[in-house]
Protein backbone atom coordinates (compact mmCIF):
# COMPACT_ATOMS: atom_id res chain seq x y z
CA UNK A 1 0.00 0.00 0.00
CA UNK A 2 1.02 3.61 -0.50
CA UNK A 3 0.81 6.25 2.23
CA UNK A 4 1.30 9.93 1.37
CA UNK A 5 2.64 12.14 4.15
CA UNK A 6 1.71 15.78 4.52
CA UNK A 7 4.31 17.99 6.22
CA UNK A 8 2.15 18.34 9.36
CA UNK A 9 2.26 14.60 10.21
CA UNK A 10 5.92 14.34 9.29
CA UNK A 11 6.89 17.31 11.45
CA UNK A 12 4.84 16.21 14.49
CA UNK A 13 6.29 12.70 14.47
CA UNK A 14 9.77 14.11 14.10
CA UNK A 15 9.24 16.72 16.83
CA UNK A 16 8.20 14.02 19.28
CA UNK A 17 11.52 12.26 18.51
CA UNK A 18 9.55 9.23 17.32
CA UNK A 19 10.53 9.32 13.65
CA UNK A 20 12.24 5.94 14.03
CA UNK A 21 8.86 4.25 14.46
CA UNK A 22 8.13 5.08 10.81
CA UNK A 23 10.89 2.77 9.60
CA UNK A 24 9.37 -0.13 11.55
CA UNK A 25 5.85 0.77 10.47
CA UNK A 26 6.82 0.87 6.80
CA UNK A 27 8.17 -2.66 7.10
CA UNK A 28 5.27 -4.07 9.13
CA UNK A 29 2.69 -2.41 6.91
CA UNK A 30 4.56 -3.51 3.79
CA UNK A 31 3.95 0.04 2.61
CA UNK A 32 5.59 2.69 0.53
CA UNK A 33 5.74 6.09 2.25
CA UNK A 34 5.67 9.08 -0.09
CA UNK A 35 6.56 12.71 0.59
CA UNK A 36 5.51 15.35 -1.94
CA UNK A 37 8.36 17.48 -3.28
CA UNK A 38 6.83 20.65 -1.75
CA UNK A 39 6.68 18.92 1.63
CA UNK A 40 10.33 17.88 1.27
CA UNK A 41 11.24 21.52 0.61
CA UNK A 42 9.22 22.68 3.63
CA UNK A 43 10.41 19.99 6.02
CA UNK A 44 14.02 19.49 4.94
CA UNK A 45 15.49 21.69 2.25
CA UNK A 46 14.65 25.10 3.73
CA UNK A 47 14.83 24.38 7.51
CA UNK A 48 18.19 22.60 7.22
CA UNK A 49 19.70 26.03 6.56
CA UNK A 50 18.17 27.55 9.73
CA UNK A 51 19.84 26.81 13.07
CA UNK A 52 16.56 26.70 15.02
CA UNK A 53 15.06 24.06 12.74
CA UNK A 54 18.16 22.21 11.62
CA UNK A 55 17.88 19.25 14.01
CA UNK A 56 14.36 18.32 12.97
CA UNK A 57 15.26 18.66 9.31
CA UNK A 58 18.27 16.36 9.78
CA UNK A 59 16.07 13.73 11.42
CA UNK A 60 13.66 13.77 8.48
CA UNK A 61 16.50 13.78 5.96
CA UNK A 62 18.01 10.74 7.64
CA UNK A 63 14.67 8.93 7.34
CA UNK A 64 14.62 9.73 3.62
CA UNK A 65 18.25 8.68 3.17
CA UNK A 66 17.47 5.37 4.87
CA UNK A 67 14.82 4.73 2.25
CA UNK A 68 11.82 5.02 4.54
CA UNK A 69 10.36 7.72 2.30
CA UNK A 70 10.36 8.42 -1.39
CA UNK A 71 10.08 12.02 -2.52
CA UNK A 72 7.36 12.19 -5.17
CA UNK A 73 6.33 14.81 -7.69
CA UNK A 74 3.02 15.22 -9.48
CA UNK A 75 3.80 14.15 -13.03
CA UNK A 76 0.44 15.07 -14.55
CA UNK A 77 -0.45 18.63 -13.54
CA UNK A 78 -4.12 17.95 -14.28
CA UNK A 79 -4.35 16.15 -10.92
CA UNK A 80 -3.02 19.20 -9.09
CA UNK A 81 -5.35 21.58 -10.95
CA UNK A 82 -8.36 19.36 -10.36
CA UNK A 83 -7.74 19.17 -6.60
CA UNK A 84 -7.01 22.88 -6.29
CA UNK A 85 -10.00 23.89 -8.40
CA UNK A 86 -12.38 22.01 -6.14
CA UNK A 87 -10.73 22.46 -2.73
CA UNK A 88 -10.41 26.21 -3.01
CA UNK A 89 -13.84 26.77 -4.53
CA UNK A 90 -16.08 24.88 -2.11
CA UNK A 91 -16.69 27.58 0.50
CA UNK A 92 -17.93 31.09 -0.10
CA UNK A 93 -18.38 34.22 1.90
CA UNK A 94 -20.32 37.07 0.34
CA UNK A 95 -20.02 35.27 -2.98
CA UNK A 96 -16.21 35.09 -2.84
CA UNK A 97 -14.41 31.75 -2.65
CA UNK A 98 -12.41 31.12 0.51
CA UNK A 99 -8.95 29.78 -0.30
CA UNK A 100 -8.47 26.94 2.18
CA UNK A 101 -5.52 24.88 0.97
CA UNK A 102 -2.02 25.72 -0.14
CA UNK A 103 0.44 24.02 -2.47
CA UNK A 104 1.76 21.49 0.09
CA UNK A 105 -1.61 20.02 0.96
CA UNK A 106 -2.81 20.18 -2.65
CA UNK A 107 0.28 18.36 -3.91
CA UNK A 108 -0.18 15.63 -1.30
CA UNK A 109 -3.77 15.14 -2.47
CA UNK A 110 -2.79 15.21 -6.14
CA UNK A 111 -0.16 12.50 -5.52
CA UNK A 112 -2.80 10.36 -3.80
CA UNK A 113 -4.90 10.61 -6.94
CA UNK A 114 -2.06 10.09 -9.37
CA UNK A 115 -0.40 7.23 -7.52
CA UNK A 116 -3.66 5.69 -6.28
CA UNK A 117 -2.44 5.78 -2.67
CA UNK A 118 -4.56 4.11 0.00
CA UNK A 119 -3.77 6.40 2.93
CA UNK A 120 -2.97 10.00 3.80
CA UNK A 121 -1.07 10.88 6.97
CA UNK A 122 -1.98 14.44 7.93
CA UNK A 123 -2.14 16.21 11.29
CA UNK A 124 -3.89 19.43 10.29
CA UNK A 125 -7.67 19.27 10.38
CA UNK A 126 -8.90 21.40 7.47
CA UNK A 127 -7.80 19.07 4.64
CA UNK A 128 -9.05 16.07 6.59
CA UNK A 129 -12.49 17.60 7.18
CA UNK A 130 -12.73 18.79 3.61
CA UNK A 131 -12.29 15.17 2.48
CA UNK A 132 -14.45 13.51 5.13
CA UNK A 133 -17.01 15.99 6.29
CA UNK A 134 -17.15 19.43 4.61
CA UNK A 135 -20.39 20.27 6.45
CA UNK A 136 -18.55 19.98 9.75
CA UNK A 137 -15.84 22.31 8.47
CA UNK A 138 -18.54 24.74 7.37
CA UNK A 139 -20.07 24.60 10.85
CA UNK A 140 -16.69 25.33 12.48
CA UNK A 141 -16.03 28.24 10.13
CA UNK A 142 -19.46 29.70 10.69
CA UNK A 143 -19.20 29.39 14.44
CA UNK A 144 -15.75 30.98 14.58
CA UNK A 145 -16.41 33.72 12.06
CA UNK A 146 -19.96 34.32 13.17
CA UNK A 147 -20.85 34.80 9.52
CA UNK A 148 -22.77 32.96 6.88
CA UNK A 149 -20.46 30.64 4.97
CA UNK A 150 -22.07 28.98 2.00
CA UNK A 151 -20.94 25.71 0.51
CA UNK A 152 -21.03 24.54 -3.08
CA UNK A 153 -22.48 21.12 -2.30
CA UNK A 154 -21.77 19.73 -5.77
CA UNK A 155 -18.08 20.66 -5.65
CA UNK A 156 -17.76 19.42 -2.09
CA UNK A 157 -19.30 16.09 -3.14
CA UNK A 158 -17.01 15.83 -6.15
CA UNK A 159 -14.01 16.58 -3.95
CA UNK A 160 -15.00 14.00 -1.36
CA UNK A 161 -15.69 11.49 -4.12
CA UNK A 162 -12.12 11.80 -5.41
CA UNK A 163 -10.91 10.37 -2.11
CA UNK A 164 -13.61 7.85 -1.36
CA UNK A 165 -12.28 4.94 0.68
CA UNK A 166 -9.05 6.77 1.48
CA UNK A 167 -7.79 6.09 4.98
CA UNK A 168 -6.94 9.45 6.57
CA UNK A 169 -4.73 9.09 9.62
CA UNK A 170 -2.92 11.39 12.00
CA UNK A 171 0.35 10.86 13.78
CA UNK A 172 -1.64 9.60 16.81
CA UNK A 173 -3.00 6.68 14.80
CA UNK A 174 0.49 5.89 13.50
CA UNK A 175 1.79 5.92 17.08
CA UNK A 176 -1.10 3.70 18.22
CA UNK A 177 -0.37 1.27 15.40
CA UNK A 178 3.33 1.29 16.25
CA UNK A 179 2.34 0.44 19.82
CA UNK A 180 0.24 -2.51 18.64
CA UNK A 181 3.07 -3.76 16.44
CA UNK A 182 5.49 -3.50 19.37
CA UNK A 183 7.56 -0.89 17.52
CA UNK A 184 6.94 1.86 20.08
CA UNK A 185 8.46 -0.44 22.68
CA UNK A 186 11.76 -0.23 20.81
CA UNK A 187 11.84 3.53 21.34
CA UNK A 188 10.22 3.85 24.76
CA UNK A 189 9.73 1.54 27.76
CA UNK A 190 6.98 -1.00 27.04
CA UNK A 191 3.61 -0.29 28.65
CA UNK A 192 0.54 1.95 28.58
CA UNK A 193 2.28 4.97 30.05
CA UNK A 194 4.57 5.21 27.04
CA UNK A 195 1.60 5.09 24.68
CA UNK A 196 -0.21 7.80 26.63
CA UNK A 197 2.89 9.98 26.74
CA UNK A 198 3.55 9.55 23.02
CA UNK A 199 -0.05 10.36 22.05
CA UNK A 200 -0.10 13.52 24.15
CA UNK A 201 3.33 14.52 22.85
CA UNK A 202 1.93 14.31 19.31
CA UNK A 203 -1.05 16.43 20.35
CA UNK A 204 1.19 19.09 21.87
CA UNK A 205 3.34 19.02 18.75
CA UNK A 206 0.33 20.14 16.75
CA UNK A 207 -1.60 17.00 15.81
CA UNK A 208 -5.28 17.94 15.57
CA UNK A 209 -6.57 15.56 18.21
CA UNK A 210 -8.45 16.43 21.37
CA UNK A 211 -7.50 15.28 24.88
CA UNK A 212 -10.95 13.70 25.09
CA UNK A 213 -10.30 11.58 22.00
CA UNK A 214 -6.99 10.35 23.42
CA UNK A 215 -8.57 9.55 26.77
CA UNK A 216 -11.45 7.64 25.16
CA UNK A 217 -8.96 5.63 23.13
CA UNK A 218 -6.77 4.86 26.12
CA UNK A 219 -9.80 3.96 28.23
CA UNK A 220 -10.92 1.49 25.56
CA UNK A 221 -7.54 -0.18 25.68
CA UNK A 222 -7.65 -0.70 29.46
Amino acid at each position, binding site marked *: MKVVFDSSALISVSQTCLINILGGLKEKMNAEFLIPQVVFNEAVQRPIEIKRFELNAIRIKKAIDQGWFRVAKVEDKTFFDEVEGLANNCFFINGNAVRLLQAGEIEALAIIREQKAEALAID*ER*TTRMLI*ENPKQLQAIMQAR*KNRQISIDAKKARLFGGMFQGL*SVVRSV*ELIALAHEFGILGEELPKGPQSLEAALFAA*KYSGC*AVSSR*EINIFLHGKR
Partner: protein
Amino acid sequence: MAKRLSSFLGKTIGAFEGGDSFGLREIANHAIEEAALSNDRQLAEIALIAYCLHKMHSKQHVVRHARWRRIRKGILLDLKKAERGLGGGRPGEFEKSIASAIRSVRSSDEMMGNYAQNLFEKARVKYASTAYSLGLGLGQAAELTGADKKELLRYIGVTKIADRDVELVGIAERLRKLKRAIAGGRQ
Protein backbone atom coordinates in the same frame (compact mmCIF):
# COMPACT_ATOMS: atom_id res chain seq x y z
CA MET B 1 -9.98 45.76 -1.54
CA ALA B 2 -7.94 49.01 -1.42
CA LYS B 3 -10.78 50.76 0.39
CA ARG B 4 -10.82 48.13 3.13
CA LEU B 5 -7.03 48.16 3.39
CA SER B 6 -7.10 51.92 3.66
CA SER B 7 -9.75 51.79 6.35
CA PHE B 8 -7.74 49.36 8.50
CA LEU B 9 -4.56 51.33 7.94
CA GLY B 10 -6.29 54.58 8.90
CA LYS B 11 -7.65 53.03 12.08
CA THR B 12 -4.19 51.66 12.96
CA ILE B 13 -2.63 55.09 12.52
CA GLY B 14 -5.35 56.70 14.63
CA ALA B 15 -5.00 54.19 17.45
CA PHE B 16 -1.19 54.38 17.42
CA GLU B 17 -1.21 58.17 17.43
CA GLY B 18 -3.74 58.20 20.24
CA GLY B 19 -1.78 55.65 22.28
CA ASP B 20 -4.75 53.28 22.23
CA SER B 21 -3.02 49.98 22.88
CA PHE B 22 -6.25 48.01 23.39
CA GLY B 23 -7.68 49.52 20.19
CA LEU B 24 -4.63 48.41 18.21
CA ARG B 25 -5.18 44.84 19.30
CA GLU B 26 -8.85 45.00 18.35
CA ILE B 27 -7.93 46.32 14.91
CA ALA B 28 -5.34 43.59 14.48
CA ASN B 29 -7.78 40.84 15.46
CA HIS B 30 -10.45 42.14 13.12
CA ALA B 31 -7.98 42.66 10.25
CA ILE B 32 -6.62 39.10 10.40
CA GLU B 33 -10.13 37.66 10.23
CA GLU B 34 -10.87 39.70 7.13
CA ALA B 35 -7.49 38.82 5.63
CA ALA B 36 -8.08 35.10 6.22
CA LEU B 37 -11.48 35.23 4.55
CA SER B 38 -10.19 36.95 1.45
CA ASN B 39 -6.61 35.63 1.30
CA ASP B 40 -5.38 39.22 1.54
CA ARG B 41 -1.68 39.18 2.48
CA GLN B 42 -1.40 42.96 2.58
CA LEU B 43 -4.21 43.18 5.08
CA ALA B 44 -2.53 40.41 7.07
CA GLU B 45 0.59 42.60 7.21
CA ILE B 46 -1.46 45.49 8.59
CA ALA B 47 -2.81 43.10 11.24
CA LEU B 48 0.73 42.06 12.18
CA ILE B 49 1.92 45.66 12.40
CA ALA B 50 -1.08 46.69 14.53
CA TYR B 51 -0.48 43.75 16.86
CA CYS B 52 3.23 44.52 17.24
CA LEU B 53 2.49 48.18 17.93
CA HIS B 54 -0.02 47.09 20.57
CA LYS B 55 2.60 44.85 22.20
CA MET B 56 5.28 47.52 22.07
CA HIS B 57 2.93 50.12 23.47
CA SER B 58 2.01 47.91 26.40
CA LYS B 59 5.60 47.38 27.54
CA GLN B 60 7.07 49.79 30.04
CA HIS B 61 10.67 49.08 29.06
CA VAL B 62 9.79 50.04 25.48
CA VAL B 63 7.76 53.21 26.00
CA ARG B 64 10.28 54.46 28.59
CA HIS B 65 13.21 53.76 26.32
CA ALA B 66 15.18 56.87 25.32
CA ARG B 67 14.71 56.14 21.61
CA TRP B 68 11.04 55.21 21.69
CA ARG B 69 9.72 58.66 20.69
CA ARG B 70 11.94 58.74 17.65
CA ILE B 71 11.07 55.19 16.64
CA ARG B 72 7.35 55.87 17.12
CA LYS B 73 7.58 58.97 14.94
CA GLY B 74 9.38 57.02 12.21
CA ILE B 75 6.79 54.23 12.19
CA LEU B 76 3.95 56.76 12.06
CA LEU B 77 5.61 58.50 9.15
CA ASP B 78 5.90 55.23 7.25
CA LEU B 79 2.29 54.29 7.93
CA LYS B 80 1.03 57.70 6.79
CA LYS B 81 3.14 57.45 3.66
CA ALA B 82 1.64 54.02 3.00
CA GLU B 83 -1.84 55.47 3.48
CA ARG B 84 -1.10 58.26 0.99
CA GLY B 85 0.29 55.73 -1.49
CA LEU B 86 -2.84 53.65 -1.20
CA GLY B 87 -5.15 56.66 -1.51
CA GLY B 88 -3.22 58.00 -4.50
CA GLY B 89 -3.28 54.68 -6.34
CA ARG B 90 0.47 54.16 -5.91
CA PRO B 91 0.79 50.54 -4.74
CA GLY B 92 4.59 50.67 -4.97
CA GLU B 93 4.76 53.49 -2.42
CA PHE B 94 2.34 51.63 -0.16
CA GLU B 95 4.37 48.41 -0.26
CA LYS B 96 7.68 50.21 0.26
CA SER B 97 6.38 52.15 3.25
CA ILE B 98 4.79 49.08 4.85
CA ALA B 99 8.08 47.20 4.41
CA SER B 100 9.88 50.12 6.05
CA ALA B 101 7.44 50.13 8.99
CA ILE B 102 7.99 46.38 9.44
CA ARG B 103 11.77 46.92 9.38
CA SER B 104 11.43 49.59 12.08
CA VAL B 105 9.29 47.30 14.25
CA ARG B 106 11.82 44.48 13.85
CA SER B 107 14.90 46.56 14.53
CA SER B 108 13.39 48.35 17.53
CA ASP B 109 12.34 45.00 19.00
CA GLU B 110 15.86 43.68 18.48
CA MET B 111 17.21 46.73 20.26
CA MET B 112 14.71 46.90 23.13
CA GLY B 113 13.18 43.42 23.34
CA ASN B 114 14.11 40.68 25.78
CA TYR B 115 13.62 37.63 23.58
CA ALA B 116 15.73 35.97 20.92
CA GLN B 117 12.66 35.41 18.76
CA ASN B 118 11.54 38.64 17.18
CA LEU B 119 8.15 40.09 18.09
CA PHE B 120 7.18 40.26 14.42
CA GLU B 121 7.95 36.56 13.92
CA LYS B 122 5.88 35.72 16.99
CA ALA B 123 3.02 37.80 15.59
CA ARG B 124 3.22 35.89 12.30
CA VAL B 125 2.79 32.58 14.15
CA LYS B 126 0.09 33.85 16.50
CA TYR B 127 -2.05 35.25 13.70
CA ALA B 128 -1.47 32.26 11.43
CA SER B 129 -2.87 30.22 14.30
CA THR B 130 -5.93 32.50 14.36
CA ALA B 131 -6.39 31.99 10.61
CA TYR B 132 -6.10 28.22 11.13
CA SER B 133 -8.66 28.28 13.94
CA LEU B 134 -11.03 30.12 11.58
CA GLY B 135 -10.87 27.19 9.14
CA LEU B 136 -7.93 27.76 6.79
CA GLY B 137 -5.59 24.85 6.17
CA LEU B 138 -2.25 24.86 7.95
CA GLY B 139 -0.25 25.74 4.85
CA GLN B 140 -2.62 28.47 3.75
CA ALA B 141 -2.64 30.01 7.24
CA ALA B 142 1.16 29.97 7.36
CA GLU B 143 1.41 31.49 3.90
CA LEU B 144 -1.03 34.27 4.75
CA THR B 145 1.17 35.71 7.49
CA GLY B 146 4.53 34.33 6.35
CA ALA B 147 4.81 32.08 9.42
CA ASP B 148 6.98 29.01 9.52
CA LYS B 149 4.88 25.83 9.37
CA LYS B 150 6.85 24.06 12.09
CA GLU B 151 6.54 26.99 14.48
CA LEU B 152 2.87 27.24 13.65
CA LEU B 153 2.25 23.56 14.26
CA ARG B 154 4.02 23.74 17.62
CA TYR B 155 2.03 26.86 18.58
CA ILE B 156 -1.28 25.26 17.58
CA GLY B 157 -0.38 22.21 19.65
CA VAL B 158 -0.46 24.18 22.87
CA THR B 159 -3.69 26.03 22.07
CA LYS B 160 -7.17 24.62 22.67
CA ILE B 161 -8.12 24.64 18.99
CA ALA B 162 -8.12 20.83 18.67
CA ASP B 163 -10.09 20.45 21.90
CA ARG B 164 -12.79 22.79 20.60
CA ASP B 165 -13.18 21.05 17.22
CA VAL B 166 -15.54 18.13 17.71
CA GLU B 167 -14.15 15.01 16.03
CA LEU B 168 -16.69 12.62 14.64
CA VAL B 169 -14.21 9.83 13.92
CA GLY B 170 -12.02 8.78 16.83
CA ILE B 171 -8.59 7.18 17.03
CA ALA B 172 -9.90 3.61 17.34
CA GLU B 173 -12.07 3.90 14.24
CA ARG B 174 -9.30 5.49 12.15
CA LEU B 175 -6.97 2.76 13.28
CA ARG B 176 -9.48 0.09 12.23
CA LYS B 177 -9.81 1.67 8.79
CA LEU B 178 -6.04 1.88 8.40
CA LYS B 179 -5.68 -1.79 9.29
CA ARG B 180 -8.32 -2.68 6.71
CA ALA B 181 -6.36 -0.67 4.14
CA ILE B 182 -3.16 -2.50 5.10
CA ALA B 183 -4.97 -5.81 4.72
CA GLY B 184 -6.35 -5.15 1.30
CA GLY B 185 -6.31 -1.72 -0.30
CA ARG B 186 -9.04 0.91 -0.21
CA GLN B 187 -12.35 -0.14 1.38
